[in-house]
């Protein structure tokens, strides 16, 4: 019984909203707008239990009740706690420019996240080193085309005999072969997405409810 309420809701709302996309009147547009204005309000509360779980998990480290407790872990968890509450209290007070909240976000959060983003180069280099071996049949072709593009992208092909043909070939492949691949993947993905959506609406797929089917 308890499980049937959410399943019923998904079904009813799913069917209603599928039909709404095929109706073009002012009220159907209103209903669609309703969904997008309600969605954030319906989901915002989820951050409370989610944050609570994280705090509890790090709280266990802080009080050394976790799997293999160490002092270092406890101290680090303390850092997390201090940072969180500093951010929370200062942020609830004011998030204007110049406030502590804004300062911490700009000078601690942003540099670190953009650094993480730029670190991708290192990860790409090591992935290329490890994965691009002729031993792995499929990745060897991946390697050949990656090398081709990398050479033409930096102008190295001008130092190679017949280099300009490399460039022409890579441009041609980008316009045809690559397009075909992207399209086919998208069609496949779309079929998968449609099927999963339908499975959700008709209650066939239930992993979002916790249990299996």
């Amino acid at each position, binding site marked *: 019984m308890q499980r049937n309420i959410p399943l019923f809701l998904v079904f009813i709302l799913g069917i209603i909203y*599928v039909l709404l*996309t*095929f*109706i*073009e*009147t002012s009220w*159907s547009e209103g209903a669609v707008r309703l969904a997008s204005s309600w969605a954030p309000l319906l*989901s915002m509360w*989820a*951050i409370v*239990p*989610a*944050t609570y*779980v*994280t705090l509890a*998990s790090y709280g266990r480290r802080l009080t050394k009740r976790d*799997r293999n407790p160490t002092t270092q872990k406890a101290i680090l968890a303390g850092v997390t706690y201090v940072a969180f509450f500093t951010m929370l209290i200062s942020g609830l007070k004011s998030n204007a420019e110049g406030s502590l909240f804004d300062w911490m976000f700009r000078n601690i959060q942003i540099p*670190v*996240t*953009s650094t*993480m*983003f730029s*670190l*991708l180069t290192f*990860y*790409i280099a*090591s*992935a290329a080193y*490890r*994965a*691009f071996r002729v031993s792995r049949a499929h*990745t060897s072709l*991946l390697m050949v085309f*990656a090398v081709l593009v990398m050479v033409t992208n930096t102008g190295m092909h001008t130092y190679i005999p017949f280099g300009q043909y490399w460039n022409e070939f890579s441009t041609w492949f980008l316009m045809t072969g690559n397009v075909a691949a*992207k399209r086919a*993947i*998208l*069609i*496949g*993905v779309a*079929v*998968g*997405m*449609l*099927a*999963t*959506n*339908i*499975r*959700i609406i*008709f209650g*066939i*797929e239930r*992993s*979002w*409810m*916790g*249990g*299996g*089917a």
Partner: protein
Amino acid sequence: MNRSILINVLLVVVLPIVLLLIFPYTNQHAGDLFLGFFPVDKTVSFIALVLLISVIVKYAYEQKSHASEIREVIPRKFIREGIGRCAEMGRPCMFVPGTSSPSDVATIAGLAIGSVTIDEAIDLDVFIDSPQRDYMVMPITKSLLEERAMLKGRPDYPSTHSDVFLASTVQFTHAQLVAGRLERDRHGFAVFAGMFWAEMLIMLEAATMNGAMVLSGVDSVVQMPFAVAASDKALLGEELYAAGAQLSEEKRLVNSVVAQDLIKSLLFTALIVGALATTIQSFF
């Protein structure tokens, strides 16, 4: 028998042709309304959707199981092996169901793969580490774990053998935390399935560098090359959606994968007939 062949022919051959024929007509009438509310240019997608829904629902609720008809997208053995590796080496298992919200269906597909991983992990007493990025997916994963543990008669399992929590809602902070954990705890098996952006490579590489066995599933075209390069088994595009259904060994889900294939054969017809027709047309 005869009737089913007839229906199949109708579905796979006749319908795509009809859709192709009416498509140019509906395209001309973009913006027009039929009966004052139905947009004419959506006729084709309406018919196609009705067809799709009825095929999937019909197959899903069939008595007979079609499990033997589809090839294995990913063997359950692979996941068992990964979890077995964790158990042997005494290391935890990492699971990240994408970094998007549940309204992205890839997340649900990722969770379906996750539920199989969790099942296997509970059987072998493996610790599950799952830092999440979306605050709605985190409770889902947590209750998934708790329900599976309940079903297996291990109600204490989530509190002693798992760490499912909200890592951060910020993309690269989440990636940094996952990478840091992978470095410290040296997980034996890592599953990354769902919707990912650029941060995926950081997680995949961090896992592989530290000796984890990696299973990845992505539906984003940009991230696929990295999934292939940096993981032991990559589920690409549609495989991600089919894998969860197939792994669950649930009759309805498996049957719906067969239905998905029927739709694809419909698309094949449309591709072949359409190309032929336009080519012939171009000669006149």
